[in-house]
């Protein structure tokens, strides 16, 4: 594409993009009408090409009306997916699951690589209060809202109170997830400098780690509640502790290895990232290591124990520019539209309550930490966005609880889509109002593509 956040596009460029989008849809539409019953590997190849091209073009076109790129990817997947044009069928969507694995590992690596010790050190007290209050409030209150409206959520029908609490807690964890790359994208675009920008970056990166630990804990807590078998014992916490420590240890080792490779060889990083994403994710699962936490730790080590962070981020950006489009477009294709038709009031309610709780929790934590006025006023603005990490967590939950997982994931995608649509707009608005943006400066390419999307 001639620019994610690059130079201004002319009307003729937009016309070419629109025409190309029509060609893309037209080619696959024609082919699927001629060979409607094909459910083989061959259909997957066409689907990947379609999702990549249509997602990229759709995001470019939606950019003209101020929507983030992620919306374009999702929309391309939704339109081409099994419930509307049926260009990408259910079988293909399932076949594309390795892309999710790769995308999640890249997102986690990038998140870790963006987390700098220096940034954390500059605001430790604020970070501690914010992490404690915001995460706890959002987790508990959103879970409460979920419980309160559960009678309107189809996939929870028939669940007893205990399993329902388990599902609500999992939803609460999902609500705690934010979008570091959306934050980074907006900051890179606006070149914002000031307390809101600095704190947003530090807090969101740290919350990456927090949410991974929270998910692991809540999965452990929710399992006996949902399955009804067994209980929680200290041994479970011991297992969780070992898993977390092992994940960090493995991640640190991986990070050191990556840093050494980047320094001594530094070539063919695409292949290295592919090997890490595909190969290590499976290996980590096999040895019961949390891959998200391990990749986060690896990225963190590369950035903070070597000078190779920018190189790693740039490589992830290059690889991700393709992988993330397919990842999000596949998520869109996975969207269960009939279910969403029934769920949209629930999704809107959950998103609105999450945003409200986030604002209130931010005000409380700011007061306790004695934040500067600008941070008190706008500190919440970066926390509404959700994307890749939240979707990734929903994938983990689907795998852990397949009995209700698909319904959970559909609702998650609906909620994430809403949050991603409005979150970056809110954050940019806040940065503008707080005077931290340099609106006169030319736009630069965000540090992670796509600009207002991902994680």
């Amino acid at each position, binding site marked *: *594409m*001639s*620019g*994610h956040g*690059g*130079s201004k596009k002319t009307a003729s*460029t937009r016309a*070419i*993009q629109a*025409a*190309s989008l029509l*060609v*893309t849809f037209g*080619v*696959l539409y024609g*082919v*699927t009408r*001629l*060979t409607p019953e*094909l459910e083989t*590997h*061959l*259909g*997957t*190849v*066409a*689907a*990947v*090409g*379609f999702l*990549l*091209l249509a997602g*990229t*073009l759709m995001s470019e076109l939606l950019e003209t009306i101020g929507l983030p790129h992620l919306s374009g990817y999702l929309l391309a997947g939704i339109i081409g997916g099994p419930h509307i044009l049926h260009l990408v069928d259910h079988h293909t969507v399932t076949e594309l699951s390795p892309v999710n694995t790769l995308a999640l590992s890249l997102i986690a690596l990038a998140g870790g690589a963006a987390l700098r010790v220096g940034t954390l050190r500059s605001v430790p007290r604020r970070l501690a209060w914010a992490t404690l209050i915001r995460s706890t409030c959002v987790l508990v209150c959103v879970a409460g809202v979920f419980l309160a409206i559960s009678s309107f959520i189809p996939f929870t029908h028939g669940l007893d109170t205990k399993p329902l609490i388990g599902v609500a807690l999992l939803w609460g964890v999902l609500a705690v997830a934010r979008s570091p790359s959306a934050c980074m994208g907006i900051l890179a675009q606006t070149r914002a400098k000031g307390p809101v920008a600095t704190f947003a970056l530090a807090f969101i990166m740290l919350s990456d780690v927090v949410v991974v630990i929270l998910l692991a804990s809540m999965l452990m807590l929710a399992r006996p509640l949902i399955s009804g078998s067994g209980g929680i014992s200290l041994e479970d916490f011991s297992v969780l502790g070992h898993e977390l420590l092992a994940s960090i240890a493995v991640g640190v080792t991986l990070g050191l290895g990556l840093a050494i490779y980047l320094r001594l060889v530094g*070539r*063919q990083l695409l*292949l*290295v990232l*592919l*090997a890490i994403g*595909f*190969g290590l994710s*499976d*290996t980590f699962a096999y040895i019961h290591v949390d891959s998200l936490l391990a990749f986060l730790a690896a990225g963190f080590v590369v950035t903070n124990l070597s000078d190779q962070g920018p190189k790693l981020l740039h490589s992830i*950006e*290059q690889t991700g*520019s*393709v992988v993330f*489009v397919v990842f999000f477009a596949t998520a869109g294709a996975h969207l269960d539209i009939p279910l969403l038709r029934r769920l949209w009031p629930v999704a809107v309610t959950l998103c609105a309550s999450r945003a409200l709780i986030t604002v209130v929790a931010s005000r409380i934590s700011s007061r306790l930490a004695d934040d500067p006025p600008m941070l008190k006023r706008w500190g919440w603005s970066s926390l509404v966005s959700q994307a890749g990490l939240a979707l990734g967590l929903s994938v983990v939950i689907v795998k852990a609880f397949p009995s209700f997982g698909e319904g959970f994931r559909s609702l998650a995608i609906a909620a994430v889509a809403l949050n991603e649509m409005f979150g970056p707009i809110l954050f940019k608005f806040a940065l503008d109002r707080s005077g931290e943006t340099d609106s006169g400066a030319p736009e630069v390419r965000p540090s992670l593509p796509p600009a207002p999307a991902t994680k």
Partner: protein
Amino acid sequence: MNAIAFLLGLLVLSYLGSILVGGRTIRGFGLASGAEYLVLGFVLGPQVLSVVNRSLVESFQPVVLVGVSWLGLVLGVSYLRVGQRPVPAPRVALSVALSALVSACVSATVFFGASYFSPLPRSQVIALAATAGLICSETTRHSVRWVVERYGAKGPLADLAADTARASALFPAFSLAIVCAWLPGAAPPAFSVVGRVLITLGLGMVLGFTAALLLGREFRRDESWGILLGTSLLGTGAAARLNLSPLSTTFAMGLTLALVSRHRDDIKAMITPTEKPVLLPVLLLAGAYVNAKLPLPLLVLVATAMAAKILGRVFCGALLSLTAKPVKGVGLEFGGSMLSCGALGVAVALAFSIRHPGVVADTLLLLASVGVLLGEWLGPGSLRRALARAGEIKPETPTEDSQSNLPSEA
């Protein structure tokens, strides 16, 4: 071995491939055609060690399909130029004619041989004969490049060898579109063979044109990957779903890009280095696909086809020595040098194998593999002798660093 381990193995191979194209000092090492990876695949595959079993190999079919099609795109994009020099139109015509001639020799031999000595039905005999001809009609440009780089050759014969090798891709790539459109199962069924061929090539041209338009005025290397990957995968998948030839579609797409995009040199510089990293895993998988346990008549047919290819190439060399000045006096050696084949022949066989698995596909894959090995054995040596006799290299003096005087591609 599980799929992830195998995938990691393929990625390591890609990594090696990327080092082979990236390192200035190790150019000229390895075999020109990558035949060693084909043999490695065969040894690891179900026929010998069974480290990689058949079901695992078959689960990698999409990887093979994408790899083969990507090679088609690379060949299409780089078709019109050797390094910075355009391939003259007469040499394109000459190369196509030579490819067609050899293809006709092999096809005729296989057709008559299979008709009389194999139990295959007539439609399969025709498919076998036509595709065997295409497999044998290519000369790999890597062989020329390998010899030229290694021996520092420079002159009209080296240029002619580079040009004809480069231009030899057109005939098999486009003719495969005809074969696939003719084979049973090709869609859309309401269309004639000509219509399906036009769909195959038209799809590539439309997507190539779309990609050229999207790449726009400014060329942004990083962002162009999405467009090139997206269009090529869409073309590959669409052609595959229609049971047409994805290789032909992506070749047409690459050729269209080379013709209409103002960034043709940038695109070529961007995707040419990906050829080896893609080729080596594809060759390994091709080797694993090879089934040497064929009925005796088909094995004899493979040998006969090889003999026809050698005779065809030698005849071409003799013909050129009478008509082309640089080849005068070295016709036999030059003909022998054109025996080198590699990626495209194997890709054609693999494309057929994915489309119509069975005994015909196995025969074709074996033919392509034997062709690669035979070409590797005879081709580079013949070219070296031809160049030495033409005075374009000093005999038996390989150079360490001959990058500056390459007539072939960068």
